[in-house]
């Protein structure tokens, strides 16, 4: 069976600046894949390219056996890729409930309804009428994940879920992962905390300066492997 997501030789540019160089990346159905790397390694660019926010016309991003490279973001969303973006990007004029409801605009049916999100993150039901950006950081992250889930995606992209959050809150949020997978979605997550990344994922990719520097099953990689790939200590000068 072909993978859910199959990316070959992906480049990405911001203007003249090249941020990704020939990235190969696959995700199988039901998998959790972690993406780690130093700041500026291209993790966020990778997710933004995948979701259509960074142009990728003419390249090869096969998702559910269709090439989605170059499609506008809204069509990629309708095809079943949803993202909780870096910095959460909640809409300040909208309350929690309205932010969640926006996620439904792709028109995809599935298990995730507003009620299901409130069961996953009960605090959001209590705060439903409050402007989303007045919530605590952890609660805002729950809204961002909930908003993405409301699209009933086949692939959920989580960018820096733990950024700026206390470890206990990060654990609470990651505790939702099994139920997200149970709904049939696969997950790609960008995570700064390597311990957390290897713990929650099946496979792991490490990016370094826009290139994949390491990949493998998360439980088969040592911290030494990862930190070498992360910082590139053994990289030959070129």
């Amino acid at each position, binding site marked *: 069976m072909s993978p859910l997501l199959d990316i070959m030789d992906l480049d990405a540019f911001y203007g003249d600046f090249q941020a990704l160089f020939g990235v190969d990346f696959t995700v199988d159905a039901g998998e959790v894949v972690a993406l780690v790397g130093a700041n500026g390694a291209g993790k966020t660019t990778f997710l933004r390219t995948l979701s259509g926010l960074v142009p990728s016309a003419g390249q090869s991003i096969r998702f559910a056996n269709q090439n989605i490279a170059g499609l*506008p973001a809204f069509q990629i969303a309708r095809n079943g890729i949803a993202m909780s973006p870096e910095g959460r*990007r909640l809409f300040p004029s909208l309350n929690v409930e309205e932010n969640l409801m926006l996620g439904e605009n*792709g028109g995809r049916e599935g298990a995730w309804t507003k009620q299901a999100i409130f069961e996953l993150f009960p605090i959001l039901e209590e705060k439903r009428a409050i402007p989303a950006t007045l919530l605590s950081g952890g609660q805002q992250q729950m809204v961002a994940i909930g908003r993405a889930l409301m699209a009933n995606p086949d692939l959920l992209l989580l960018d820096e879920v733990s950024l700026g959050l206390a470890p206990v809150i990060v654990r609470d949020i990651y505790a939702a992962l099994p139920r997200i997978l149970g709904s049939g979605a696969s997950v790609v997550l960008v995570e700064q905390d390597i311990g957390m990344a290897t713990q929650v994922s099946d496979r792991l990719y490490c990016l370094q300066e826009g290139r994949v520097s390491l990949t493998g099953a998360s439980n088969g990689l040592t911290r030494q492997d990862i930190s070498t790939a992360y910082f590139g200590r053994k990289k030959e000068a070129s």
Partner: protein
Amino acid sequence: MDWINAIVQGVLLGGLYALFAAGLSLMFGVMRFVNLAHGDFIIAGAFGAMVLVELTGLNPLWMLLVVVPVMGAVGYLGQRLVLNRVVGQDLLPSILVTFGFSVILQNLMQETFSADSRRLSAGALDTASFSLGSGLSVGAVPLLMFVAALLVLGSLNWFFARTNMGRLLRATSDDPEIIGLMGADRRHIFGIAMLLASAVVGVAAVLLAIKTNFDPAAGPIRLLFAFEAVIIGGLGNLWGTLIGGVILGVAQGVGAQIDPGFQVLAGHIVFLVILVLRPQGLFSRSG
């Protein structure tokens, strides 16, 4: 009593200014887009109503049923076919394009309708008035304008608060880049914003044609009033826009009471004073 009368008339005129301003505010709020042809669109709508009245012989108020949907449709198509190409991070391309529209529209109207000043008659409504006692009376047309403004702004507020498209419009105003992640096509949302703004222009156009004289070159001054009402009220707040329109209308009414030549200038002076004292507007969200 003359002074109270001037204030009351100014308040009612403010309704019309709020209608001018609501479309402008909506376009800027959702798309960060300044439409310099906004006033000319209003005048074009007024001429459209005039042509329809000449063809049908009906009361101009009936023309709302045609002008409003036609303006809305033209707005949507214009946004999708032309303006979506120039909206973006940079304000300048949209300013240049709509400035071009403004010049083209004014000249087309001049060619077609000549430079003569026109006005539409709403029949008995033109002179009908209600007495409020002690010598104070309110004309039916100004009252109609004010009620229309309340209805239009109330409906827009309801639409923004209660519908999915309303939520999308607010969200686009907050953060247009990621609206696509919600599975929504930004080009369509911009089209809808323009459709709403243009439909409001249609209402304003028909009422303007009944209320006052208009000619092909009358657009830019309406644009100026619209800008002033938006800025006084504060961007992104529709009821603020109404208050802005009312303040402008009252300033002009009181100015005219002092000296008829002082009418428009008094509005500008009040606008400038508010701009200096409270540049974010009286009811700005960020203020």
